């Protein structure tokens, strides 16, 4: 299996260059992912930054290969409208939209009836995904739910027959795995430990429902030609000896990436070969999706594309190869 490798886009201004509009700064980053051969870019849900729908539109319009993973809170819109938004993206970008609906992330607002605890948020998410997929795949669709009611719904005409966005879900508790088994295409964990601990149980639950859920991991990365360079960089930045967990390849796991400004606190530090080794180990456990968080984004995306990906992907393998004539961008 070939890994799908994603990078994460900025939702806030990072360079503090007054002359560079933030949307231009971000455009450099998704162009980097595009030309460096990554599979996609993630538009994160960030209450303290810009809204992800806008990032997704900009990235998909100005690329031809990369997918965009739209992270949003399920409270953001009703499921039929969410599906409408997705349908337009799929129509205009040759099906390059993916979904990452968030369930228990903080939201300052929701439509009544309110969800008040994890159980009621998961119940709402279940209805949301049932309806959005339901109207997408059926010409007529009805559902009388607790949170949403649809009567005489269903996509027809140009809205019909499009690929539904691949659904990426997160979390490691039982509620999260149950939702993923029922609705997820990819379940994204945040540590190798979670992958090993919870991955098999999730895949078993999905199988029981006649479904398959791919495993994924989201992590930060500090990778250089040699492990010495990577560690040297880290020591120079942190000024102390960071708390590193040694891994079999010689690379390390570090939980301190937040101090470098990353949004994924955990990740790998090591040489290209070592990190490729760790990713191969994850792939052997069923991981097919790796979402990376790197800084600075543009330069490190080039580094990954040119130095790490060739070690991760054997020459013969290639990920999806969309028909150039149908990628829907110029």
């Amino acid at each position, binding site marked *: 299996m070939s890994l799908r490798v994603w990078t994460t886009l900025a939702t806030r201004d990072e360079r503090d260059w007054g002359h560079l509009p933030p949307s231009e700064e971000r455009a450099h980053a998704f162009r980097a992912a595009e030309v460096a051969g990554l599979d996609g870019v993630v538009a994160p849900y960030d209450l303290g930054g810009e809204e992800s729908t806008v990032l997704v539109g900009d990235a998909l319009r100005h690329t031809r290969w990369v997918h965009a993973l739209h992270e949003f809170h399920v409270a953001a819109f009703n499921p039929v409208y969410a599906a409408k938004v997705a349908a337009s993206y799929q129509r205009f970008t040759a099906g390059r939209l993916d979904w990452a609906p968030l369930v228990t992330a903080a939201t300052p607002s929701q439509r009544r009836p309110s969800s008040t605890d994890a159980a009621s948020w998961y119940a709402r998410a279940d209805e949301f995904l049932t309806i959005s997929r339901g109207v997408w795949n059926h010409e007529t669709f009805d559902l009388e739910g607790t949170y949403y009611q*649809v009567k005489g719904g269903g996509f027809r005409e140009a809205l019909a027959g499009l690929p539904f966005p691949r659904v990426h879900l997160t979390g490691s508790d039982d509620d999260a795995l149950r939702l993923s088994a029922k609705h997820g295409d990819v379940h994204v964990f945040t540590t190798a430990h979670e992958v090993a601990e919870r991955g098999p149980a999730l895949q078993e639950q999905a199988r029981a429902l006649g479904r398959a859920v791919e495993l994924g991991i989201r992590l930060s990365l500090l990778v250089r030609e040699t492990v010495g360079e990577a560690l040297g960089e880290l020591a120079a930045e942190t000024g102390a000896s960071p708390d590193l967990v040694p891994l079999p390849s010689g690379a390390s796991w570090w939980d301190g990436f937040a101090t470098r400004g990353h949004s994924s606190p955990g990740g790998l530090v090591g040489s290209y070969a070592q990190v490729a080794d760790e990713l191969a180990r994850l792939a052997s456990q069923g991981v097919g999706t790796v979402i990376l968080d790197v800084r600075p984004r543009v330069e490190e995306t080039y580094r990954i594309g040119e130095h790490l990906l060739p070690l991760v992907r054997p020459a013969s393998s290639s990920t999806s190869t969309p028909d150039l004539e149908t990628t829907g961008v110029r």
Partner: protein
Amino acid sequence: MVDVYWRIGTHGDQPSVRRPHAQTRGDWAPHEPGSITPGRRGGRDDGYTYVDHMADVAKAAESAGFVGGLLPSFPFTDDPFTTAALLARETRTFRFMVAYQPGFLDPVHAARLSASLQRATGGRLTYNVITGGGGPQQTWWGDTVAHDDRYARTAEFLDALKGAWGTEPYDLDGRFFDVRGAHLPSELAAQPVPEVYFSGSSPAAIETAGKHADYYLSWLEPFSALPDKFRQVREESAAYGRTPRFALRVEILARPTEEEAWAEIERAWPAIDTSKLSFDATGDSVGAARARGFIKQPVTGPRDLEVEPNVWAGFHLLRGGPVFGLVGSYDQVAQRLDELVALGTDAFILAAVPHLEEAYRIGSEVLPRVTFDRTNSLTSTLRSAS
């Protein structure tokens, strides 16, 4: 200053006003010879999609002197917010007038989305807030709230959106929405709240418009009926200490001479759907029902629908959309637009099919003939993108 907007079709477009059922631009109808975006080359799709045509219409309208364009929203259309997000960086002064129903979005999410679009475009987002025609269309969207309650929800939504559009925490223990500690990061809070073009003709609509509309948007109606409608909205607004402005959505069929304009309709007439001549309205939309009252039956030919000079009640027969519009020479249409401004109109959304070519025609032949002061977005630095 009068803002003159154009429109971008979100359900494809037809190649000529003479072919009411042809839909060869975009993929909302099956591909036929002559279809474009996508077109065919060497027997295969050429890789263009309908959004590429929408981008070209936006650029045509921008070049032709329109300040922006309305992106309409119905069940079987593309989504306006999505289109605006895709096209944000492809125009310079063009304002995206995004149609949406507040019931379908969370208000704080809408604030974040809108402020992010404002930041990406240099403040070029405008709202067309619609509250929905009711009936099967409404439940298709997953909305079961009754007509007057929908307007109450629209009001609460706009309260919450504006309340959250700042850096201080905002709470609203509402009937429809539950908002706690909502605010925007400072870069987004600094963006302007989009102007609200508010649609709706019922008493509940006009009451809500009084509180929230920057522009009260109406389809064109016979000139004799407009002053009353404007007066009613003005009175409702006064209760909230607001002075509303009025915008009209006007279909145009303009040619060098009046005869040529009517000849276009005569050519299309044999192909029209005659069942639409009964002016039946579905759903609970008060706007559609109002149009019916102006028509004298029976209708046997196009000129039977000319309810006032150059005001024609048959545009819905030529393509989806409003009933009333202006038919005439460039001079006549410009003169009617001047009269509408004299009646109290502050902004226009004009439209004609095909949207791209007609943007050039109206921009170069009709707009130069009007005498009212209109916003010239091309020389305005206020809204130019950074």
